[in-house]
């Protein structure tokens, strides 16, 4: 079965990833991503039962830091980078929904 990245799926992931796309772009990306997915889709057919997944190359554990305060970054330097700041804080357009 050939994998397909449908225009609906492009729209869905673009919404999740906060990317505004035009209708043309949706079609264009659907086509390109289908080609890429078609190539890598073969991976699904591999029988890998019993093979553990690797998320990190090396099994390091318990890498910890002591609970000691160190100076951070100066607020002026931080806010200078902000596209828009007000009273020591980052200003953003209205937020339409509460955090999930």
């Amino acid at each position, binding site marked *: 079965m050939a994998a397909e990245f449908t225009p609906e799926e492009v729209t869905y992931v673009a*919404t999740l990833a906060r990317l505004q796309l035009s209708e043309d772009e949706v079609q264009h990306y659907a086509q390109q991503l289908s080609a890429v997915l078609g190539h890598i889709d073969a991976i699904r057919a591999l029988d890998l039962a019993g093979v553990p997944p690797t998320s990190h190359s090396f099994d*390091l554990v318990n890498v*910890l830091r002591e*609970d000691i305060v160190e100076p951070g970054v100066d607020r002026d330097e931080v806010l200078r980078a902000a596209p828009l700041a007000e009273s020591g804080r980052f200003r*953003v357009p209205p937020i339409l929904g509460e955090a*999930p």
Partner: protein
Amino acid sequence: MSFLTPGWELTVGLEVHCELQTKTKLFCSCANVFGEEPNTNVCPVCLGLPGSLPVLNRMAVEYAMRIGIALNCRVEPSIFHRKNYFYPDMPKDYQVSQYDAPINVDGFIELPGGTRVGIERAHLEEDTGKTSHMGGGGRIHDADYSLVDYNRAGVPLVEIVSRPDITSPEDARAYVSELRSILVASGASDGRMEEGSLRVDANVSMRRTGTSELGTRCEVKNMNSLRSLGRAIEYEALRQVELLESGDRVVQETRHWNENEGRTSSLRSKEEAFDYRYFPEPDLVALDPEAEWIEAVRKALPQMPSARRAQLGAMVLSTDASLDEHALSDQIATVVDLGLDQLVTASIAEGADGRLALARCANEAATRPDEARALDPTAFCELILLESSGKISATQSKAVLGAMLDNSGTPAEIIARLGFEGVDEDRLGTIVDEIITANPKEWQRFVEGDEKVAQFLFGQVMKQTKGQANGKLVAQAFNARKGS
């Protein structure tokens, strides 16, 4: 269950987010403090600046283990995941949290009333920043814009997820209250719900009595006191019952508790799918505390409130077998909750009146818990002994305790300074005799059993002693002369 229509059963599961009292944040060395100027406790890591990387705070892990052990959980090997969603208070637009391999699993809390509530998990995660909504009504829905402060971003949290074992608003409150005491006792949290260091979300669902399958649940957020937790659950339960009885269905969603309006409302402002795309955080490695570390944490863990309440109750009772433990349970809970049990137990050990020590702690000392915890138990015991032996009156004792909380000296020094003369039994006897002689008619009526005149005679003694006589001893003196 009185508030519910018969035939319905309430099921509640609680998610409690608890800020840990570490010195620094979860993944960076910025100070973990409340109430600073906005964006002054930030660094590349907690601002999510490009190129920055997290390093886990050892103390946060230790506090998480303390909480897990105190909640009877198993401490397990764990990993961190990224929970991906966009929100301006989240500097990286993902939250680092524990997902399918949390540090603590499968514990329980025994409530004072005897109910056992299961704990599914207690996992580590990072807090978000804070947004303020400007213009409009200052609320999110009608704001013109918002301002973001990242001081809180990256503060360590332990999220404690209960099993849906809670069946009444009272038990929900009792659960949070008990959990709060445990968290404070473990040293992991300051337990302040109003300041947001303890935040409670409730998953509420209704089902018909006798059915086993749980109903559709709603998650209720934004309760910032035990009182509002109870009210919100009650409101939400009734709302759901009303829907279900009219043939509607409950939509699974997050609802916001509005304290002023006394109701919950839907948070969904528009159709937005949440697909968190959890995956293992590649910038952090696994956490697998050695058995010795877990054991050391277990050993160092102070006694938990339930054990302390039992111990305190037994000690108070041992001083007077006629006492009713049930009647004292509120005082015992208050004293343990505020961490003042040491004062009472130390006093009892020195032979002081247990009921009196408990009352002074639960009523007077409890009004200033921070200062009370700093009191010298020996000095407190001295005070209770002075009061119980009648050297000072109850009123005087309270005044002396107040001065002790102001840190202005030992009981003896304070008594001397305030001029509270000790009214000993000899002097009291002389005064009582004088009053009997001066008021023969009243004395006769007292001997015949007139209760009203007793107040007059006692009042005369108090007048003579400028209120410094011990009421109990005064009564004893008059009664003794009545018989002779």
